[in-house]
């Protein structure tokens, strides 16, 4: 304990007493100075937001203009009773601010998306077909939201983005790298979840009880999705290959894989990737073990939110209801959100305080894989 407890007010010391005993005053002060932007507020983001607000991160800003009446079912921060007329971000902000009045919760206008970055990329891409005559005007129109997003991100230390399509995630990763901002981006799809972490080319941190500063190098999402498959062994979490297959699909089709029609294409890509891994070269059933049954299907199908129970209700024939239930996307499973939201928040706190080694650089968790295995996977250079 550093002798700086008196630099906290009595209110802070009283409310934060138990966690001060875990991480000490210096980390608490750094958390109180940190600014975190959260893009997209579904069930996973709600968990992360709750956790970092309770911890006392100084400023947490929410970006999600979805009407609160259409909030994700797993978002426990939205109270249906007072949701009318508010955006998801506004409804969540009210709850979060009440949860911890010692920090600041803000709302920024705009969609839970970074699609503006993609449009801008397309505009700038010289390989694109000859621009039509109105391109100049259109470029200006898309540049404005992209520029707004760029300026928004630049005002924060750390960005947390949940549920983005993978190409939007990749674009956000490039933006954060360019601006020197930390990124945590992930999603929960049914019983599976991944979180990608990019703390820049040179993240420094200290470890309690160890002298000196340590350094981790992180890679962009794009580089993580094109890492050498020789690094993928039979112990690698299978979700990595599935995620990469979905990424390849998105790159090829300029849209996320979603719905039963896309499952076959993603599975094919996943099988091709699995065949190129070190595990496959080792022979035996190792490559097959990399793609457990149902994982691809679930990851593709459950990306969509489940339809509201009211909509599902009028099913009259039991068999039809049964079939509908089987095809019904699971959305974000709440227990998975709770587990992964806790892990992510712990690592956001490590990242912004520069104390303790944060995840490097992918966290995979799935109830469909080996009893619910939660694993850190590293796809940045040598360990």
């Amino acid at each position, binding site marked *: 304990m550093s002798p700086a407890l008196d630099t906290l007010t009595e209110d802070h010391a009283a409310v934060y007493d138990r966690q001060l005993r875990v991480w000490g005053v210096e980390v608490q002060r750094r958390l109180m100075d940190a600014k975190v932007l959260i893009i997209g507020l579904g069930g996973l983001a709600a968990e992360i937001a709750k956790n970092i607000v309770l911890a006392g991160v100084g400023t947490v800003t929410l970006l999600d203009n979805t009407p609160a009446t259409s909030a994700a079912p797993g978002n426990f921060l939205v109270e249906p009773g007072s949701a009318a007329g508010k955006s998801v971000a506004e409804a969540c902000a009210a709850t979060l601010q009440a949860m911890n009045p010692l920090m600041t919760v803000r709302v920024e206008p705009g969609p839970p998306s970074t699609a503006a970055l993609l449009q801008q990329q397309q505009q700038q891409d010289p390989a694109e077909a000859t621009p039509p005559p109105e391109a100049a005007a259109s470029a200006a129109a898309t540049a404005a939201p992209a520029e707004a997003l760029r300026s928004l991100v630049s005002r924060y230390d750390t960005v947390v983005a949940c549920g983005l399509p993978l190409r939007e995630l990749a674009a956000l990763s490039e933006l954060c790298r360019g601006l020197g901002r930390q990124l945590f981006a992930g999603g929960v799809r049914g019983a599976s979840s991944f979180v990608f972490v990019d703390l820049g080319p040179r993240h420094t941190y200290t470890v309690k009880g160890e002298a000196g500063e340590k350094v981790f190098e992180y890679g962009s999402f794009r580089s993580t999705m094109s890492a050498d498959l020789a690094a993928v062994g039979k112990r690698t979490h299978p979700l990595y290959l599935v995620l990469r297959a979905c990424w390849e699909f998105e790159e090829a089709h300029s849209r996320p894989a979603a719905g039963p029609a896309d499952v076959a294409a993603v599975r094919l890509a996943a099988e091709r990737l699995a065949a190129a891994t070190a595990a496959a070269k080792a022979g035996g059933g190792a490559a097959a073990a990399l793609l457990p049954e149902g994982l691809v299907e679930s990851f593709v199908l459950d990306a969509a939110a489940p339809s509201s129970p009211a909509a599902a209700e009028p099913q009259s024939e039991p068999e039809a209801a049964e079939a509908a239930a089987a095809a019904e996307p699971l959305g974000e499973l709440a227990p998975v959100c709770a587990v992964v939201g806790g892990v992510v928040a712990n690592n956001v706190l490590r990242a912004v305080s520069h104390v303790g080694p944060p995840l490097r650089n992918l966290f995979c968790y799935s109830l469909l894989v080996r009893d619910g295995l939660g694993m850190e*996977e590293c796809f940045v250079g040598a360990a």
Partner: protein
Amino acid sequence: MAVEATGATWPAVLRTKELQEKIKSAKVLCVGAGGIGCELLKTLVCTGFRNIEVIDLDTIETSNLNRQFLFRKHHVGQSKANTAAQVVKGFCPAASITAHHANIKEGRFDVDFLRGFDIVLNGLDNLEARRHVNRLCLAAERPLVESGTAGYLGQVTVHLKGRTECFECQPKPTPKSFPICTLRNTPDRPIHTIVWAKDLLFNRLFGPPEAVSDLDDQARREEQQQQAEAEAAAATEGGDEASGDAAADAAAAAAATAAANAATAEDPSFFLRRDGEASLDYAGRVFERVYTTDIESLCGVKELWEKRPPPKPLRLTELLPDPDMAAIRSALEGAKAKGPGGQAACSASRALGLANASQKWTAAQNASVLLLAVAMYHELRKEEVGSASFDKDDDLAVDFVTAASNLRSFCYGIPEQSLFDAKGMAGNIIHAIATTNAIISGLIVTEALKILAGCLEAVRNTYLYEFPTSKRQLVVQRPDPPCKNCMVCGKAQLTLRISTEVATLASLLSGVIKKRLAVSTPNLVCGGFMYEEGEGLDEDEVAAYAALLPRTLSALPGGGLRHGSVLTVQDQSQHFGVDIIIAHSDDLKAEDAPEGFLLEGDVPAAQQQPQEPTAAAPAGAAAAAAAAKRNANEFKEEDGVLVLDDDDEEAGAKPAAAVQAPSRKRALEDGEDRDGTDAKRAKGVEAVSAAAAEDDDDVVIIDDD
């Protein structure tokens, strides 16, 4: 619905309509609405559970607000169960949540009550309640998912009657207690002076009379034990020299204890404030008695100081010259002028301008805080004197204990503590953060879903670590089958080593039956002796049983409890029973048996080694060892104080769960651990945990309300 295996496969079953329906209709009991409980209620309703009952006896404290996210500042002082239920309904109006602001051990929460649920989920903060719920679940044949957290560590275990270990199949470490003679005469660690300040001096000055007399009884028992040791050693004399030495040592120890007890014999009335005595004069008189004359008397007991340096008395007039006394006087007047204003406004250290809780005080500052704290109790909270009990959330009590323990530490050359650290040690405060509780709630609900779906082969015990070890943040293990020798779910007999000539029925009940065996309403039978507690007894029965309490075991009716007697212990409310074989022993050493007895057999409690609040990660090999070290550092207070009780538990006297990490290692059950590499790794694990065990480090102490 009892536990039934269905043909369903996990996790494909998640997609079935049947499971969705079961989730909607299942009746769930959540025991605890604190750190884990808040998260659990939220995760349950977000998963689709709609019929939930929650029990918690606690009220909300300010220090809960950093993680019990359902609670707001304006809820402080209100019932956790009621508030949690109301807030959850705010964001999930479709959920039906019934709250009980009550103790789970109350008679109305009996086996029939439990049978009304499909599954029981524990988010408890103390071992006693966990064991009680375990027994109720076994009797009611309801599945139990048990959990615990401390700092970054957490665990979830599944208990299915007849299929997996019950909560009590594995021994749970009991909190460390200290021999009274060490606390009174020869402290050598900060925790010794803190426990002395909290349990002895605080109670002597402000607590109820019986709180102190229990300790006096214990001191007398230790003295008798030591005398017995000396006699026993003397009886074997005439043999080799070593036994002569042993006899001499034992005799010396006994004499020292006796002399020390005599030297500091406490007339309780001395510690009462006299009529017309000014509160600060009274405080000064107590100071001089405790830190001057008592220390001087102890110094006079030469036997105690042959192997260690004697303590140094403190003198009030040297520590606090007139200007300091004047400052204390004016601080007291200032506090009085502000009026009582309740506990919240009452702090001696802040009144003296000592605002930095992490800064250690000087001897003079400690003395000032002590005097002012005593005076403030008498001036501002007079009505509590004689009935107060230490509460870690009471600033004045924490001021007093910090100053009183530090002054004693100065006498004995022990490192003193800051207010922040002393509060942690005195309050047995568990480090607690939101993230761990959230993760654990997710894991509890995952296991609950498997059980509801009937996928009983898929249930797992899960352990959460601070850092990934071998890349894994969560280690998953298949639960062991029930232990045949379990006192609770199997057939076992216990042996109790105790002096039947010294121990009384009252001490047997409080120390062994209630504390160690976690029996709440005991029924004892042994030949012609019978003893009962609970409702439904006649007044004359109650009186007759009460009259037996002070008797020694050998003097009980029906020939008494003697060597070889078999005592049958039952608890109707818990549907629990066990036989205890009495083994008379009058040479128990205080250091082996600080509580005056030894309980042997497959007791889910009696680990006698000192436990350190450290945690060793059992998974992986080298990485695990490194993580264990990190975790250990995270937890290790400089002084091995057993941080067991959660912060939100009253009094800190109750044992809390310190759940053993998977020590009987099986290969990690993650589906791939069946090849040679993993076998090797499993061996590595065993080596790590064996090494850890020697250091008493293999205990993951895990608890958050």
